[in-house]
């Protein structure tokens, strides 16, 4: 992996946003995630890498309790968001997901106009009191997602009519509009061409100043480019977690080294 340009990264002393301890996930009889401990920092992009089926997406979906929608999934262990257990009985997953937004692997714009797609979150959470306020949120979210210039003249057009890359940025704008504290991204660039990927990556870097971003990716180049911290998952175990530069240049675990040099996958 010598071709990857790994810059020296300064990870400032951000406080811990999410603390996961001893997280286990079972899908029916399959033990998908085994005993994962992670601290995710605020104001940081954290990348989850690892071969297919290693549990990285499963873990991501634990962080906003999306696994609740899968009836066969059982989650144990503790995940604290700002010190509060998100699997506590008193926590409503609906409120949690407003704080922990998610962008999916495949762009999934709603069958509504571009405007309504972005306004969806603020509307259901009652974040705005007037149309002008909503307009402002829609505009700023689309701007942050680097989509505003392309769609500002056709906000009433259906979101499903956009190109793949635009759709994915629309989904990011939609997630930003609810102003979450954490943004989870499950392979957000896997369906995009290199140009759209570059745009989304640039966007992720900008988002870091406001949210803590967790990104699952299959591309190690991408992890190296956008993240400050990297976690390597293998067969349901969290093998290594640390500063991105360190993980890619001087991995502590032989499995990490094998993976990033392409020997296991």
């Amino acid at each position, binding site marked *: 992996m010598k071709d990857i340009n790994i810059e020296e990264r300064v990870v400032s002393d951000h406080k811990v946003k999410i603390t996961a301890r001893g997280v286990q996930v079972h899908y029916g009889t399959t033990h998908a995630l085994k005993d994962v401990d992670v601290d995710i920092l605020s104001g940081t992009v954290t990348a989850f890498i690892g071969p297919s089926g290693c549990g990285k997406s499963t873990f991501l979906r634990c962080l906003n309790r999306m696994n609740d929608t899968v009836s066969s999934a059982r989650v144990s262990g503790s995940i604290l968001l700002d010190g509060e257990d998100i699997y506590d009985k008193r926590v409503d997953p609906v409120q949690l997901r407003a704080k922990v*937004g998610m962008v*999916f692997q495949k762009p*999934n714009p709603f069958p509504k106009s571009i405007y309504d797609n972005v306004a969806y979150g603020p509307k259901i959470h009652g974040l705005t009191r007037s149309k002008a306020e909503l307009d402002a949120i829609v505009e700023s979210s689309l701007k942050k997602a680097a989509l505003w210039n392309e769609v500002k003249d056709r906000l009433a057009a259906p979101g499903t009519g956009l190109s793949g890359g635009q759709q994915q940025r629309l989904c990011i704008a939609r997630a930003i509009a609810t102003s979450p504290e954490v943004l989870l991204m499950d392979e957000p660039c896997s369906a995009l061409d290199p140009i759209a990927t570059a745009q989304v990556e640039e966007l992720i870097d900008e988002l870091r100043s406001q949210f803590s971003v967790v990104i699952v990716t299959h591309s190690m180049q991408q992890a190296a480019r956008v993240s400050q911290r990297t976690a390597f998952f293998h067969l349901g175990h969290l093998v290594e977690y640390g500063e991105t530069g360190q993980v890619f240049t001087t991995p502590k675990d032989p499995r990490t080294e094998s993976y990033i040099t392409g020997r296991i996958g």
Partner: protein
Amino acid sequence: MTVLFLVAIVLALAVVGYVVARGRALSSVKGNVRELHSLPGYYGWHGFIMASLPALALLSVWLIVQPMVLERTVATLMPTETTADQTAFKLAVADIRRLAAGLDVAVAQGAMTEEEARSLNSESSNVRDTLAGVGVALGSDVSPETLLAAQEYRVKSATGTLWRMIAVIAVAVAGLAYAVSVTNAAFRARNRVEKVVLALLIASASVAILTTIGIIWSMLSESINFFRQYPVFDFFFGLTWSPNFRGGSELGFLPLLWGTLYITAVSMVVSVPLGMFTAIYLAEYASPRARAWIKPVIEVIAGIPTVVFGLFALITVGPFLRDWFAQPLGLGNSGSSVMTAGIVIGILNIPFISSLADDIINAVPQSLRDGSYGLGATKSETIKQVVLPAALPGIVGAILLAASRAIGETMVVTMGAGAAAKLDLNPFEAMTTMTVKIVGQLTGDTDFASPETLVAFALGMTLFVITLGLNIIALMIVRKYREQYE
């Protein structure tokens, strides 16, 4: 030789064509299938099609044309006054054919020889009695001309049948020979076969369209007959429906239209909410186990004949509504009412809407639901704002289908709402619909020339136009949202 036997021979030749053409294709490349343009089976099917299709096409054309030609020929033997106009011609030809068929039966049963049947003449024997002896009843005494024509008809049709057999088999053999002769490694058998299959598919699709055109045509001509005898304005804007077979009827269509729309509206008020809620429960909330038995149970309703629902309306719903609502509220004391029929049709339509809508809701991709949940939407927000809008075109289609069914429902209305055509707002009053009156006007002894009977066709035509309009609206709605949503 009967048609069935002839078809069997052609099919046997076709099978021979399959085997021979396939074998020839294989032998032309010495068994190396890779050198063939198409798979060996396609060469076989090409042989099959070439042997059977032209021959069967010829046979069907022959079956249509031969009687027409024969009728024309033998009619010339009849006195001109009996074939002067269309109706008389049809009657004369029918007589001839019945007599010819009678002679056939007599010959078959041995009551007379073939020779006798040919030389029979009405002076020397009583044909009517002879045929009655073998169980063929003729309406009137046989005139010499008819007998002559019938004998001529028998002879000509026997000749025609013989030539038919020769021609059809010749075409089948020629097709077979052609298919075998063109079969070689480079011959594009697959493309040929696929073209025939394509034609078959197109033909199947046209059956429904042609039938619709046929329906319109038959109803239109009878409706025009009706409007020749009854003023158009009085039909479409008349407020009274009182057919009288002694003449002087008032055939105003508005009371029937009102009854139809009223009953349909009541039924939709019942079936749309219940059906939709059922569908939403089944698709979004029911556990797989609950769904596995609730859905089939609801669909059982769809399989119950509507006449059984009519009984339910007649003996249960009707009296219940009368005793508990109509009479206490002072709205009349009729067991048959718009409410009775409307509610029962509504119940009948619940599985229709719920089952279709359930499938449509299930077809909404899970990724849309995930996207909504991922933004912190609740289940009901997701259903209301994402799932249902995405499923809307299909749901509208399902609802309009149910509306068409409600408009066309006859049995439940007859038994539940009665047969009295009235213009009334009271939903506990007996009313009736267009379909009931169509049946009513056409049952019993009817004379197909009076406006009282022909009005049924005008009603049918109007009903057709209404449901067609409804379907067009449905299509427009679906298209509008499809443009917006896909």
